[in-house]
């Protein structure tokens, strides 16, 4: 069903022609009570030319949408382009309500588009324009034979691609613009049903007992649709759930894991403070033991999922005067609603908008002593080993971003024309495609192989830092190339290329800045030559 207000990409900001509402002579929507198709049709802007996109509804009337929209998608192959049909003539079912002969593809798109449009009215189900529009946006095929994935991992990727492209990709732009993921809770429950929230958790708590490579694949596919939601997913499934799995005792796992894995609860992890980012060991959040409780005072900053989380793993200093300072850190499990715990303003970030980040405030927050995660004052081991795996799993984010850039840039290059041919045939553009693709594939092999090694029990801080160092920097570069490929169109927010760049930049900063990652690798070499 067409929205009453045009989606942002239908009415680009560049156009100064103001008249909202229908142009005289344009068809009216056959479904929405004959209301006007509301978008701004400028005569000024040469970018706007109309191409028909047929409604899957029974009447088969053409709905005209601006060329800008059509440019982003390969031209919709009509029913007559599916092999074997009578060429040229409109198939019988297209013009008349003869359901039987309606093109299978249009129906298929309706099946797929159904999720995007929502249950809606009976009439709405038949006018699944959105489903048809998204049909061209499935993205490029990923060669999983080169990537060395097993049969099950390929199926996992297929399921996640399908799910994310249907349920998440259509909302990604809106999530970014509003800096909010409305419907996050429902989406989390759907992820829980798919079984992807507790990938590394044992089966008895509802997890899937699989490995880090599977986790990276899911992270990649979610990030391909929306990197912000991918980041929230990574924070929940790896930073929170995986830490509980690796360090929690039976009671803690039984209490917290099931709801986190089913998606009913959202998890987060808090180590950074306003004055302690890279120098995380200098954190000031204090935890004083008072009988059966620890009382926490201080604050945390930059906490992903902070505003929404029900369960948070918080690092605090139980011994402020420990020497070295790392010896005084303890990890705690904090629940939303514990007295003295509150969250402050949601941060207004450059990218990853929709992945809510905020400040946590602890004012005499009472945390039961049984919520100590791991051993008292040995929290730094929990922290550091967790960071290695965090870097590995979050490397899926840049991979997904790079894939998304390719998904959008490569088709565009084969639709946009200049100097009489598709610009994708020019050598400099071919070079760009080659650079983007090889960066993505090189990063993929590195990440997947390190993940496979971790699955075999071979953990290596040097490579865990290396994978995210390299893929994050490649992702920023690929996103820049992607914007360049789209030229002026890449510079406006109708197209997602800007969002990809803004989202990619975060991965050079979060989970240890690129500088810290380089230190880790350098020091690892130093240590072998002591």
């Amino acid at each position, binding site marked *: 069903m067409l929205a009453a207000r045009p989606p942002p990409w239908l009415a680009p900001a560049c156009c100064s022609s103001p008249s909202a509402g229908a142009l005289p*002579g344009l068809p009216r929507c056959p479904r929405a009570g004959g209301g006007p198709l509301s978008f701004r049709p400028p005569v000024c802007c040469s970018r706007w030319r109309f*191409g*028909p996109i047929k409604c899957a509804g029974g009447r088969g009337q053409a709905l005209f949408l601006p060329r800008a929209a059509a440019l982003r998608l*390969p031209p919709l*192959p009509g*029913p*007559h*382009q*599916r*092999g*074997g*049909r009578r*060429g*040229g003539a409109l198939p019988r079912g297209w013009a008349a*309500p*003869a*359901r*039987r*002969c309606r*093109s*299978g*593809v249009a*129906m*298929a*798109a*309706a*099946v*797929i588009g*159904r*999720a995007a449009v929502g249950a809606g009215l009976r009439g709405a*189900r038949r006018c699944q324009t959105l489903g048809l529009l998204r*049909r*061209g*946006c*499935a993205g490029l*095929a990923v060669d999983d034979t080169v990537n060395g994935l097993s*049969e*099950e991992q*390929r*199926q*996992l990727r*297929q*399921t996640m691609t*399908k*799910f994310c492209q249907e349920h998440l990709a259509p909302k990604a732009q809106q999530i970014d613009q509003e800096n909010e993921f409305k419907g996050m809770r429902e989406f989390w429950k759907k992820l829980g*049903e*798919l*079984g*992807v929230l507790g*990938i590394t958790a044992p089966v008895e708590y509802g997890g*899937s007992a*699989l490995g880090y490579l*599977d986790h990276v694949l899911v992270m990649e596919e979610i990030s391909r649709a929306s990197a912000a939601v991918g980041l929230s997913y990574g924070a929940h499934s790896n930073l929170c759930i995986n830490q509980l799995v690796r360090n929690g005792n039976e009671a803690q796992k039984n209490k917290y894991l099931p709801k986190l894995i089913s998606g009913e609860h959202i998890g987060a992890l808090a180590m950074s403070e306003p004055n302690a980012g890279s120098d995380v060991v200098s954190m000031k959040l204090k935890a004083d033991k008072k009988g059966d409780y620890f009382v926490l005072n201080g604050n945390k900053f930059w906490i992903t999922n902070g505003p929404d989380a029900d369960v948070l793993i918080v690092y605090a200093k139980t011994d402020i005067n420990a020497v070295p300072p790392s010896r005084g850190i303890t990890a705690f499990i904090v629940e939303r609603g514990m007295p003295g715990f509150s969250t402050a303003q949601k941060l207004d970030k450059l990218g990853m908008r929709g992945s809510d980040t905020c400040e946590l405030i602890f004012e005499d927050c009472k945390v039961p002593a049984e919520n100590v995660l791991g051993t008292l004052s040995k929290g730094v081991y929990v922290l550091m080993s967790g960071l290695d795996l965090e870097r590995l799993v979050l490397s899926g984010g840049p991979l997904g971003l790079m894939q998304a850039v390719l998904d959008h840039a490569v088709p565009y290059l084969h639709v946009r024309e200049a100097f009489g041919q598709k610009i994708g045939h020019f050598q400099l553009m071919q070079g760009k495609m080659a650079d983007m693709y090889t960066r993505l594939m090189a990063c993929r092999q590195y990440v997947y192989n390190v993940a496979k090694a971790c699955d075999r029990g071979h953990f290596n801080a040097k490579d865990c830092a290396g994978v995210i160092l390299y893929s994050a920097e490649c992702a920023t570069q690929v996103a820049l190339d992607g914007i360049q490929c789209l030229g002026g169109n890449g510079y406006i927010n109708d197209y997602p290329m800007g969002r990809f760049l803004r989202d990619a930049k975060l991965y050079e900063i979060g989970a240890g800045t690129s500088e810290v990652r380089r230190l880790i690798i350098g020091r690892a070499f130093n240590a072998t030559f002591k």
Partner: protein
Amino acid sequence: MAALRVLVGVKRVIDYAVKVRVAAGGGGVQTQGVKHSLNPFCEIALEEAVRLRERGAAAEVIAASVGTRACQETLRTALAVGADRGVLLEVGEGPAPGPREAAAALAGLVGRLRPDLVLLGKQAIDDDCNQTGQLLAAMLDWPQGTFASRVELEAGAARVQREVDGGLETLRLRLPAVLTADLRLNEPRYATLPNIMKAKKKPLEVMSASELGVPPSPPRLRVLKLEEPPGRQGGQRVENVAALLERLRNSGCI
């Protein structure tokens, strides 16, 4: 209610989202290196069968496919969605089996497995033939309920609501019967990760048509030529209805 055995036919087709191109030579479309997946209508049929089993109306769901070895990945997806076992009726390389060949192979399989209900998708999105279900029912001499938008099982019979041109028609068919699924029958589920892992252990048999006693029949249709339709030409605006009518008359449309 007796626990039934349901056979679901699934077809491996080019993914709905792929932009199809005519293959060099014009004899078909490019399939090399192109993403394939389970036909969406077969997914709906499979979902219905799995729901029947979950409701207790069916005991076993068997997914079957007629095609080359590559169809095994499609059957694995079907197992991940919820089928209990998979059967691949393997055909050699060469032109892909059409509806008639597929129906003949499935009829042979029905003779071997003896299901009480056969569920197929109403059509495949690559050829849009909408024939396999009907041909199969005729070959088996079983009742058929095509374009099903609702299926209810009663003792020894199926009550099927069909979407037809004039509206909705409800039929009561004695089992065994062949049903083909239409779009609004249900919303198929995703293959969840736990189910993908469980599917690894489910049996997937490969048999050839000759094992079933199905005589080899060469395809009776040959695609002579396949080409893309001419690109869309720009339209022209006319001033008023009179001019439009004149234009239509001049071009011989009316």
